[in-house]
């Protein structure tokens, strides 16, 4: 019971933190926007007569000073209205959520590749540090970290789409609409379209996670309990997997969880290269066309994603390591 109450307190604390961060982002967004520019110019161009511009500005609520605009926005947000997109003329939350499945499936594909490859590779590099294979993996991971994700995508497209013509280069292909979720995972074409973007996105996360797994495993393998287990006659594979890896998961989840923001940024770059119709691609379109409500709502969702993952990471760490008490995590 005590644990549960502490958990609720932690969640509350996280929420307050998140609300503060998002308020800060909003204040900056509104202040920057009013100080720097005229969104109307981007929406309708310079040629529209003054009277019409003023009318439109009033309609969109752009004639008020920015604190008033911010207050109005917050008032609407409280009722679930995050504004209407200038480009799509639909509620921004609806526009962005419609793009969520595309981004999610891309991240899912990349995460599967990262998980399936980084854990065995990281363990191998930790238990056989001087083997040729381990050294090659680590050298390759320096290369992987050095190649920007958009270039990986461009090279893959050049080789597999332009030269060999094996795989499609852009878009999601055929999708199936499940009503609430538009998926590309159920058609051959959709899966073919996913291959290159997923490999691209995983290529930048993979070196990082191999190093993480390796580092965490090396730490654990140095502990006495590993030697004790070996002395008792446990088979090496069993010691690595069910003893060391289990304990290595704690720092792994904590550090890996911090990478959400980086993952969002890399997803945005990957979506741009492959014209993948996800949230990041939509965000850049909103930016170039100065669709301020859409930009603001995107930032809102990104903030929300941060909070959710951070909380999940806290809960996961707790489940994996009984030594961490909730009171201790602040």
């Amino acid at each position, binding site marked *: 019971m005590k644990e549960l109450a502490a958990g609720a307190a932690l969640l509350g604390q996280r929420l307050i933190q998140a609300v503060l961060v998002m308020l800060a982002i909003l204040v900056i967004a509104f202040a920057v*926007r009013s100080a720097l520019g005229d969104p109307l110019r981007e929406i309708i161009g310079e040629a529209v007569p003054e009277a019409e511009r003023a009318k439109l500005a009033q309609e969109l609520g752009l004639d008020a000073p920015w604190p008033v605009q911010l207050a109005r926005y917050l008032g609407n947000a409280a009722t679930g209205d995050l504004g209407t997109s200038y480009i799509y003329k639909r509620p921004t939350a609806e526009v962005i959520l419609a793009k969520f499945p595309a981004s999610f499936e891309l991240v899912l594909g990349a995460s599967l590749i990262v998980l399936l490859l980084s854990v065995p590779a990281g363990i191998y590099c930790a238990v056989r540090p001087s083997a040729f294979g381990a050294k090659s993996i680590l050298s390759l991971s320096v290369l992987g970290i050095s190649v920007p994700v958009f270039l990986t995508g461009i090279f893959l497209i050049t080789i597999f789409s332009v030269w060999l013509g094996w795989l499609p280069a852009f878009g999601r292909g055929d999708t199936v609409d499940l009503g609430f979720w538009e998926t590309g995972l159920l058609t051959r074409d959709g899966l073919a379209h996913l291959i290159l973007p997923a490999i691209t996105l995983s290529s930048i996360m993979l070196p990082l996670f191999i190093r993480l797994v390796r580092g965490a495993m090396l730490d654990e393998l140095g502990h006495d309990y590993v030697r004790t287990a070996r002395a008792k006659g446990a088979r090496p594979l069993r010691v690595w997997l069910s003893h060391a890896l289990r304990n290595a998961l704690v720092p792994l989840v904590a550090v890996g969880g911090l990478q959400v923001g980086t993952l969002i940024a890399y997803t945005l770059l990957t979506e741009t290269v492959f014209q993948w119709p996800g949230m990041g691609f939509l965000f850049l379109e909103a930016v170039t066309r100065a669709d301020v409500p859409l930009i603001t709502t995107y930032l809102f969702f990104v903030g929300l994603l941060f909070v959710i993952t951070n909380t999940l990471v806290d809960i996961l760490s707790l489940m994996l390591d009984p030594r961490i008490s909730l009171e201790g995590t602040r």
Partner: protein
Amino acid sequence: MSAEAIRGNSRSILAYAAEHPGATLAAIVFGIIAVMAAFAPLIAPQNPFDLASFDLLDAELPPIWLEGSDPRFLLGTDAQGRDLFSAILYGTRISLMVGILAVVIQAAIGVPLGLWAGYAGGRVDSAVTRMADIQLSLSTLMMAIIVMALFRAGLGGETLSRYAVPLLVIVIGLAEWPFFARTARAAAQVEAAKDYVRAGRALGASSFAIVHRHILPNISSPLIVVATTQVAGAIMAEAALSFLGLGMPVTKPSLGTLIRSGYDLMFAGAWWVTILPGLVLIGLLISVNVLGDALRDALNPRLVRR
């Protein structure tokens, strides 16, 4: 830069080079790229910022080793008829400049904060550490993208392009100071406990003098290592922002901008406009990263490779 390391180990450069072929190759590649970028105005056959000097009739010519090329354009031309070789030279110059200046800002913020946190401890320490943690948990690349996107939406593309260099330097500079702060803090903590610091204090030296004149020179090695990897990170961040259209404009392209503007042409067959600047960018990043790793090994005798 690895020269200091070599002197420290009192071995000849050649012996070091024979032992570390990777680092040597990286030093050579970086040296060539850096020198060519520094002397770009002298080497480049064309000024790639002077839009009036391009001829659309020269557009999309391939590099000279391919059919249909023009001997005037070593690496071919882009969609506007701009000489790609000149554009890459100037672009590398911009990428390097933004990267290095951004790291200077990172160091200017992070090193003093970290030094003081490590030396003073207590409340200063926890405040700095907390700030660094918060900033790092927000993902620096994502923050840079958001800030540049807000400027892009607020200012419009044209105004943004005029102030692109200072904006990129400041945004990338502000984003990653915690890496310097952390390193400086950890190193200063170790140094603060040593005898020379206590002796200095006993002799009546001010805290400022102790921190800046005595501790700082002693922790320069780890800071140099961080600076090297941070330069690679900053160059990569700039390239990413420019690739997204949130960085350097087409009129004053960095490597990232060149890759972006050439990308549309790739499907039309003109792959060189995007691939060649991409290869230069990768060469630059790999060589800086490998140099950073080599410096870490050379400057830190405690860190024996596992």
